[in-house]
């Protein structure tokens, strides 16, 4: 049952990815519209898959690196769909949909989703669930902010070159991209903050202290400070456009190094299974 839901979600993600890419190649809006609906179903299906797993296990199923990545993929597609209702930026879907598909597929290919979950009891608490899920949704928002930022830089560059590029027609207007970037960071920041707080509360009960100077913690903290700075500049100084886009890309890069890179390449107490 679980696997049927998972497979249909994966197929739906694949179909919507194909739809989005085809819509760009043949320049047809209705294809992108259809792809958006398929993506919506994919999002619902994968959400159901997570829920089923959660109920079965009795605790949050987002534990492994692969679970986390596919959860981010799912969250990104959800956030994008929410934006799609407000602004017409379907072209973003052609990045989000393949990204979500890739992340979820990677998780299933590595066997992370099929494997029986054997967890030490300390990881089954509510604080861990809150910590991972809040932080991951925050990261998904930052990922989308980063996407919008990259697109902003491309579009900005094309407009400044003062040539007629057909590619530029595919990209959303600058103002929409800047708003997506801003809103994602505006929401992502408090979520990441709460995630970090939840994590440190849990750490206190297990490790005996809130802070470990672990590479993952330090990396996350650096990018947290960068996002805090960016948000301050945006809200107080009125940073907009290129500078903000560039900054959000750099901050996300550091965050990714902290979240994934550290897990893979260095010694960390923040790796459990």
């Amino acid at each position, binding site marked *: 049952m679980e696997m049927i839901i998972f497979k249909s979600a994966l197929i739906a993600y694949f179909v919507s990815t194909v739809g989005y890419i085809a819509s760009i190649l043949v320049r047809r809006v209705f294809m992108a519209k259809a792809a958006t609906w398929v993506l919506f179903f994919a999002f619902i299906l994968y959400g159901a898959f997570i829920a089923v797993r959660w109920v079965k296990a009795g605790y949050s199923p987002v534990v492994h690196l692969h679970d986390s990545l596919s959860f981010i993929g799912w969250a990104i597609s959800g956030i994008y769909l929410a934006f799609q209702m407000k602004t017409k930026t379907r072209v973003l879907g052609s990045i989000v949909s393949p990204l979500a598909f890739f992340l979820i597929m990677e998780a299933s290919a590595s066997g992370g989703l099929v494997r029986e979950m054997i967890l030490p009891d300390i990881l089954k608490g509510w604080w861990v669930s809150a910590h991972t899920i809040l932080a991951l949704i925050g990261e998904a928002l930052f990922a989308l902010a980063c996407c919008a930022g990259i697109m902003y830089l491309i*579009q900005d560059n094309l*407009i400044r070159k003062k*040539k*007629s590029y*057909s590619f530029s027609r595919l990209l959303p*207007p600058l*103002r929409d991209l800047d708003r997506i970037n801003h809103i994602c960071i505006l929401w992502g920041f408090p979520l990441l903050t709460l995630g970090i707080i939840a994590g440190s509360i849990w750490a206190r009960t297990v490790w005996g202290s809130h802070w470990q100077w672990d590479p993952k913690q330090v990396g996350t903290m650096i990018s947290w400070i960068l996002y805090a700075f960016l948000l301050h500049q945006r809200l107080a100084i009125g940073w*907009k*456009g290129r500078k903000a886009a560039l900054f959000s890309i750099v901050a996300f890069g550091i965050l990714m190094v902290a979240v994934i890179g550290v897990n893979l390449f260095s010694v960390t107490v923040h790796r459990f299974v």
Partner: protein
Amino acid sequence: MSIILVGMNHKTAPLTIRERLSLSCDSADVPLRKLKQISQISEALYLATCNRVEVLAHLEDREGGVEELKKFILSHGNLSLEELRSCLYVYRDDDAVRHLFRVASSLDSMIMGEPQILGQVKDAYRQCVEYKASGIILNKLLHHTFRVAKRVRTETGIANNAVSVSFAAVALAKKIFGFLAGKSVLVIGAGEMSELAARHLMANGVNRIIVANRTYENAVRLANDFHGEPIGLDLLDEKLNEVDIVISSTAAPGYVITPEVVVSALRRRKNRLMFMIDIAVPRDIDPAVGDIDNVYLYNIDNLQEIVDDNMKVRLKEAEKAETIITEEIIIFSNWLSTLEVVPTIVSLRRKAEDIIAGELERSGAWMKNLSDDDRDKVKIIASSIVNKILHDPITSLKEESLNGGADPYVAAMMRLFKLGHDE
């Protein structure tokens, strides 16, 4: 049966002649009424725009009617025979269809890809229907034309990119701001091009306009045209932070807008994006302004270059459009050729139905003894036998008509079955 198109356009006829022709169609006497009086014409469409005057007609007879059509245009526009001969073109059948498809798809327009022509063709057709000047062929042809025009528009990029400076400016503004509703524009100096650009921006949702001029009176005059607010040039720096789009075209010898002023305006407007268009020669806006973050500066050459590039794209897309049109002509002419055999098929079917009805009536006496159910069965058997027999000849006839060789078969069918069209 023949479709014919007679007309002149901006390529073949000078403005003075087109003028005389299109002026006369405003007169009370509708050209369609006159056209209908020509006996050889069974259906007619009259299309007159500022760039073309065309008559599309369906003639019963292949030969007659053309001279009458020419005469109609001659008298209609008070043209001399000389003038007429040099500008008039005459297309027949597939060529006429191709021309109509090209016109409606805006391939034959002065500015290729412009959107108005399709509406004008639709209006002409509406008038044609109103005056009952259309029949089966023109109805089908015009609906097919609208479909072709739509296909060309959606499947090629012929109408995609702006090909005038002011539209290019609007397209850029949309690329920067998305929707233009709620945005404001500042027009510095007067000039045809800046006024045109301002009008296009307003047509696209810009709802506040400030007009600045060296002489305040001129600003007031222009502002009245736009329902905008006039200011003197001395207030320029102060107002700059309130506007999203700036169009400048003064005759000033030096720069009117400097980087310092823009930086200060940006600070006051919290870095909200600005789009500046400098159409003045010599330039009004210091080119260094273009290097400032969140400001996009275009001068007249930049815009012209974009327009030129877009025009090249359109020409390329036009080739795709011609392919589509060629495909569609085949579809239409197939339909047209099956049309030749339709009356024959209809009368053949009618004759068969009459025979069935007659035979059933004659057998009414003994059929009374049958139950309702069995009576229905007999009727069904009778008509299905007839349909089976007729099926092959009818399909063969349609096939022959697609190859264009149906005439002898139609004649044979009429003789063998003793059919007459007027039954």
